[in-house]
């Protein structure tokens, strides 16, 4: 039985369909990356799993229980850190720990918080506020906060997209290490195929929106621990990367939309005399091309 399951999930905002019939099934301990274009609905998908949004149709199940509301069994790392700026690193994490384990002794809570601050290598910054930290450090705090509540599943919403390339690589290594150490089920949302391949056991592309859906899964068969340098020369990595990018680009190309636009043409064409003149009832059809007010064309 799958640990996390999405069955025919659809979601639209107003008239705009964002997700259509998305299906996903995850086993416990798996690290799955969902790769998609920006604006394709990745965050929407994650918010559905987090319970911050409700699907219009279909169900999201964790441990065979339908997800109806957010809860601490799912740790979320948001794209823009979402740390409370008036609390220090320690207090931000303590707030979460205190909320989830109200019965623990104060000593135990403090130890727990310290442990997770150490796990993301932030012990020297424990009494600083988010405003005094760099982007990478803030994101680590956010990861530590999500892990400290010991969730069943960790949801990462483009956690590294706002960081510079070097910091991103460091944090990818840390995520990989933490995953190895904790064996948590992780859903990573990202727009970087390389990041997905480096970190995940499985990669599932999200097709281009609107009405995006999850594509076929790509299994990553590179043994762990993965070496960032060696992986670039790995033929499996190269093939996987090529296939994934091909699939995503194709999904974008296949997507044809129709749109209606105003036609403004000079009136240079003669009247269509083959058509009979209408009576007093008025014209019911266009006699000149310029009288056609709109046309429907296909664009890519």
């Amino acid at each position, binding site marked *: 039985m799958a640990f996390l399951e999405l069955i025919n999930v659809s979601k639209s905002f107003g008239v705009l369909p964002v997700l259509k019939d998305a299906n996903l099934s995850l086993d416990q301990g798996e690290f799955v990356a969902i790769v998609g274009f920006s604006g394709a609905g990745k965050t929407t998908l994650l918010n559905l799993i*987090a319970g*911050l949004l409700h699907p219009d149709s279909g169900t999201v199940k964790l441990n065979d229980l339908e997800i109806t*509301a*957010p*809860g*601490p069994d*799912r*740790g*979320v790392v*948001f794209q*823009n*850190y*979402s740390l*409370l*700026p*008036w609390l220090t690193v320690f207090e931000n994490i303590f*707030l*979460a720990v205190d*909320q*989830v384990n109200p019965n623990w002794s104060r000593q135990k809570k403090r130890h727990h918080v310290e442990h997770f601050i150490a796990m993301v290598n932030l012990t020297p910054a424990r009494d600083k*506020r*988010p*405003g*005094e930290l760099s982007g990478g450090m803030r994101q680590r705090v956010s990861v530590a906060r999500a892990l400290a*509540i010991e969730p069943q599943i960790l949801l990462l919403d483009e956690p590294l997209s706002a960081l510079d390339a070097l910091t991103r690589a460091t944090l990818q290594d840390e995520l990989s290490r933490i995953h190895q150490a904790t064996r948590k089920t992780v859903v990573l949302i990202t727009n970087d195929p390389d990041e997905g391949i480096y970190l995940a056991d499985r990669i599932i592309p999200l097709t281009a929106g609107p009405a995006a859906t999850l594509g076929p899964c790509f299994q990553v068969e590179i043994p762990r621990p993965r070496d960032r340098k060696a992986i670039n020369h790995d033929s499996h990595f190269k093939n996987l990367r090529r296939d994934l990018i091909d699939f995503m680009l194709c999904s974008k190309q296949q997507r044809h939309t129709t749109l209606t636009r105003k036609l403004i043409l000079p009136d240079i064409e003669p009247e269509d005399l083959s058509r009979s003149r209408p009576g007093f009832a008025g014209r019911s059809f266009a006699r000149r091309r310029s009288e056609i007010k709109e046309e429907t064309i296909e664009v890519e």
Partner: protein
Amino acid sequence: MSANTNDFPLKKFDWLLLPIIGFAGALLLWHILSLTIAKDLPSPAKTWADSRDYVMKPFEKRGEMDQGILRFTWYSLILVAKGYALALLVGTPMGFMLGLSKTFTKAFDPLIQILRPVSPLAWLPLGLVLFLSAGKNASELGALFTIAICAMWPTVLNTAVGVRAVPQDYLNVAKVLKLSRSKTLFKVLIPATLPYMFTGFRLSLGIAWLVIVAAEMLTGRPGVGGFLWQEYNALNYSHIILCILTIGIVGFALDRLMSVVERRFKTA
């Protein structure tokens, strides 16, 4: 030779020199006015001579309406503090409700927009009527009511704006952690709104101090405003100017004080 180089040696002192020039200009204008157009206006020198007693012995009490200027100021400040506290106690929760509930906003926003521009002079008689039964305390309660209801609006509106401006991210954190309603309020909403609230508090204090004068004038309570009105009726025009200056200086000091407090609560 450019003007800049001429100014240079004085540049260090312009924070002091320029205001002195400003004050001196105003004094000069006042002096000229008192000599020419407005013969009844006491000149600066006469104003000082008449006010000397009140300024040099600021805490002396010679009679109910004949006291040192700081003693009067103290009475006014106490009344303002009470009315202001009342305004904050009522205004802050009201602001939170407006910010949190669309229904509440729809129901009460039009009412607030109508009551907000009403002058303190209009509220005061109503306040006195409201507390007619209180007898001796009617004037104090009426004044408190007026100060509170006039000073409340900036706090109400700023708090509401602040609550609406709380980033969705913070609320998502609260939701994911399943914080209870009261915990969300105290751990997330209030800290996130605090900078807005303090801007409101500061504006409210300014208004409360404006209202005190009107309230004291009409009720005849001892205080800067009451003294001002009494001295006008007693034809001691110098003291009117003394009161105006006192009110201005105290208002300025209060505003500075609040902006220091406000800055302390600005979170990154």
